[in-house]
């Protein structure tokens, strides 16, 4: 198999969000799509207690050559895929650098501290501005709303995968997505997932 070429080796992606948004699923799908391409993929993630409404992260190291640490070093993320906007900022603080790119779902999930009135959730404009300042390029998509139209907010994570493919920094192909999805999910879900993937891809201009 001919290995796809990468912009950097390793190319580091962080998928972040809130427990329950399907972070692990998204990282597995992306990892498998790239693995099919003959690349070495290392995914680091935590689940368990961190699932219960907390901030979650998956670290993907994509390399033509070798296995890398399942934790990305500080400041070394090339791409941050955020399923929730304030999680993008949290990740940039530790793993970002001026060249990091960000793909961000704009739907807020209020932390408990906001719900109970101890802190405020910032406006989306304010968040966008901060994220743009801290990245080389940022794409903002309303994946959750589009997913609700498809019938389930969980499709938001697959839309983000579609959008990431459309950005074009990684060798991601629709056919590989189809292969991976049909191996890991019930056959009746394939169509809806492909639809979510395509909707996500169309969100990137």
């Amino acid at each position, binding site marked *: 198999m001919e290995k796809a070429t990468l912009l950097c080796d390793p190319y580091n992606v962080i998928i972040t969000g809130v427990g329950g948004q399907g972070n692990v699923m998204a990282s597995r799908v992306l990892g498998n799509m790239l693995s099919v391409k003959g690349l*070495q*993929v290392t995914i*680091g993630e935590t689940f368990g207690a961190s699932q219960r409404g907390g901030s979650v992260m998956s670290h993907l190291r994509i390399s033509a050559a070798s296995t890398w640490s399942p934790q990305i070093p500080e400041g070394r993320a090339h791409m941050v895929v955020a399923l929730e906007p304030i999680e993008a900022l949290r990740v940039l603080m530790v793993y*970002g650098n001026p060249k990091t790119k960000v793909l961000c779902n704009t739907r807020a999930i209020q932390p408990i501290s906001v719900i109970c009135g101890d802190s405020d959730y910032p406006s989306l404009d304010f968040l966008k501005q901060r994220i743009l300042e801290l990245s080389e390029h940022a794409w903002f998509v309303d994946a959750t709303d589009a997913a609700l139209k498809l019938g389930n907010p969980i499709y938001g994570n697959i839309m983000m995968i579609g959008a990431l493919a459309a950005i074009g920094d990684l060798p991601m192909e629709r056919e590989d997505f189809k292969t991976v999805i049909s191996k890991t999910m019930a056959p009746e879900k394939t169509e809806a997932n492909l639809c979510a993937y395509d909707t996500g891809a169309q969100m990137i201009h």
Partner: protein
Amino acid sequence: MSVLLEGKSGTRHLLMGNEAIARGALEAGVSVAAGYPGTPSSEIIESLAKVSGESKLYVEWSVNEKVAMEVTAAASFAGLRSLCVMKQNGVNVASDFLLHLAGSGTRAGMVIVPCDDPGALSSANEGESRHFARLVEIPLLEPGDFQEAKDMIKWAFELSEEIRNPVMVRSVTRLSHASGNVTLGELPALSAKAYFKHDGPPMDPMTGVILSYPVALKHTRQQEKLRQAVMWFEQSPFNAYSGPQHPELLMITSSACFLYSKEAISLLGAQGRVGLLKLGTTWPLPPELMKKYLACSEKILVVEEVISFLEDEVKILAADLAPKIGSKTFFGKKDGSLPAVGELNPDRVVAALATILGIDYQAVPKIYIQRAGEAVSAAAPGRDLTFCPGCPHRASFWSIHTALQMDNRQGFVCGDIGCYSLAMLPSGYSTLKTLHSMGSGIGLASGFGKLGKFGMDQPAVAVCGDSTFFHAVLPALVNAVHQKSNITLIVLDNSGTAMTGFQPHPGLTVNAAGHSAPGIDIAGLCEAIGAGVTVCDPFDLQQTQQTLLELLEDESGVKVLVLKQICALSPEKKAKKMYEVTVDEIVCLGENCGCNRLCTRVFKCPGLNWDTDKRVSRIDEVICAGCGVCASICPVGAIGKKEAA
């Protein structure tokens, strides 16, 4: 169909560390596997259970880790290869049996896989299993990547059979729950027949009785086995060195720390100055191999998680070898180069390495870090852990907290291990006042309940989950009943081992392989041992609180309240809303209500938000799970619920 059975030899797959371990066991021809669920270990048994129907394999979720180890040892005694899996503190539970097993010896290969959790990412401790290998004197192996996680298991089975004793293969969260590409090996055809020979000469390890008596003789044999293991370790393919012949600094490492160390050397561009000795066989250390590499550098940095173990062992060996290799300068946990708490990562290793080598390293421009830090403090409020939307525990702790306040005698709750441990946090109304090991809540309560003699009149309550109930609560509950301890035990029964992914337990009518099994009734069991039992639905707040108030006042000994409601994430309940919940914006008085927005300010369910523009509560339809409990909280009836279509 799972890649674990279908994956052909020579093909490459992206596997989670735990899946790689499971495949390794299958490639080794494992016949019996048992464990108790616990993060980060659960997927090993889970993966094996999934394929057990299609292969000659028996897999069980045992009631606790000690029983799991006994079940797997029985298989070994009967000539079958067996695998025993647990999280780090499971080894504590099993250690009494393990000590005796290490003395009696085993027959067919038996491998014990504890998965440690440095940094306590999903634990109430960051204890280590490595020390147990040394304590009970059995060989210890630690895989350094995903391929090794698979390959090492097969090697461990062979070693176990060579020395006729269990072998420990220790994993950590960042291997078990991380994924990487693994090339598969052959799956053997299994034909093993189980038979327990016990009538040979009593001292014969393969046909006699299996005992740790006579202790001195068996202990001597055990130490001979270790010397045999060391000979294997000297030649092991899992120990590898990379770097210059005479490095300025020798790094010695194992497990996930190998990947961090490799990355740190690369980030600092120090490949020409630093040698990296990766050890897969970490106890007992192979002295000849160690001598060879210790001799090649004056400075040694040991990189490991969590407290110094490898460092201590290397230092002891270096002291023995000092006449041959000279004295060394050591860096690691003891001199503070690396932290002895929490997990490591590439950055922590970079920091240690940069200091020792005198390299100035700045990952990102300082101005970027400053700006990002400012943005986070201005715009990214913290995200505390909380119960899931629709979680029965939120309702249970709301009632427990309320009842204790109404009782007004400074009563308290002793906590236990499970999702409900979160009730130590404000999102569980800070209800738990103690939290230790599995089953400790009821044990502590049993003690508190006997302190009336010393003037204590606070009601003592314990909580436990349904899986925990069987794991370790039963003996303490029997104790409390027998001692007439005046306490209330609340069983938060959500019908599964929810925190680790709904593994079955003895209270359910299904087993690990998905077959039907006799379920043991918790309420019936409690009644049989003489405790008074009440069963309530925690979503019925009024009845739960009324019952609790009565139980707190009842001073007749042990009272058990079973709060039964299925976990919101359980496969049968997930994504199915019981109710459509809505907030009537006109009825909701918000901050002007006497309750001062009780539902969002105090109840704090993630599915119920505060609308900052309209100054009323509102349902987040994406998050709300439709349990309808919040409708019972609102004093003015602004929250309505309608049965979902």
